[in-house]
């Protein structure tokens, strides 16, 4: 274990992981711990285990429903970029295509473009 606690107390791996999850490390300790965390799978497991245990503190809490407008805000922010388009916006390329096709057909007949040379 290369991460050292502040002062000269040697770190005990597991407890530093707990302090990290609780947010009790100072900035320098946290940075050192996170550097170690990136290369140490065991340490990562320790962090996950502490997170799991500490999260059970929340089991005691009385649930509080958030106001309904919060969901509307989240929905708008999450799906906002891909809002449903009005029908005419979905249909106009098809309509334009249809108009163009009709115009071509009309032009073809009108200018007699479809006359074939008489077969001999």
């Amino acid at each position: 274990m290369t991460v050292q606690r502040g002062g000269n107390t040697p770190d005990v791996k597991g407890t530093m992981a707990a302090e990290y999850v609780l947010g009790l490390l100072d900035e320098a300790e946290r940075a050192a711990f996170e550097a170690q965390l990136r290369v140490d799978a065991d340490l990562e497991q320790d962090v996950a285990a502490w997170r799991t245990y500490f999260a059970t503190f929340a089991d005691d809490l009385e649930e509080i429903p958030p106001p309904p407008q919060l969901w509307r805000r989240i929905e708008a922010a999450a799906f906002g970029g891909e809002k449903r388009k009005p029908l005419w916006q979905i249909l106009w390329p098809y309509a334009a295509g249809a108009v163009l096709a009709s115009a071509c057909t009309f032009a073809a007949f009108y200018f007699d473009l479809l006359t074939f040379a008489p077969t001999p």
Partner: protein
Amino acid sequence: MVLEDDMDRLMSRVAMADRQAFAKLYTHTAPALFAVALQVLKTDAEAEEVLQEVYLRVWQRAGQYRGDGLAPMAWLISLTRDAAVDKRRTDTHSGGHPPLPDEGAFEQDAGLRGAQSEAALRFRQCLSKLPGDHATALRRAYLHGAGYAALAEPTGRAAGDLRNGLGQSLKQLKVCLGG
């Protein structure tokens, strides 16, 4: 609250951008997460901001909880707690210092309502063996984002002493939890 199995399935669907699953996940988990955020933050508005941030992250990265090695609900609680503590710290730097909520002593059977996971029961058992008010201190550190200074203040001890003491308790806790 939904069962872990259902939560797993729900999260997989959210990871595949299933909007209905996302709405269902919100309905089932938001009241618990709002309660977590309100432990740390003093106003509803701040807690709502945190929840919005958390759910957007979930929508964008629902697959990540497996990589983090957590069960879905523990992952959601962790995200919310950390986001709320971050928000509290940023706001504390720029504005007034919000007081920590009053906290009664840690009650050993406070959480025995409803179904408890095995992890929760074991954790509670191990906590009850810690000396003095260390279980309460850990709870305050987690739920309220209290640092060593804030934890030591009511006890009249130095923050460094508390840290050494809590360090011993964390070691004991780790052994008790089996690793």
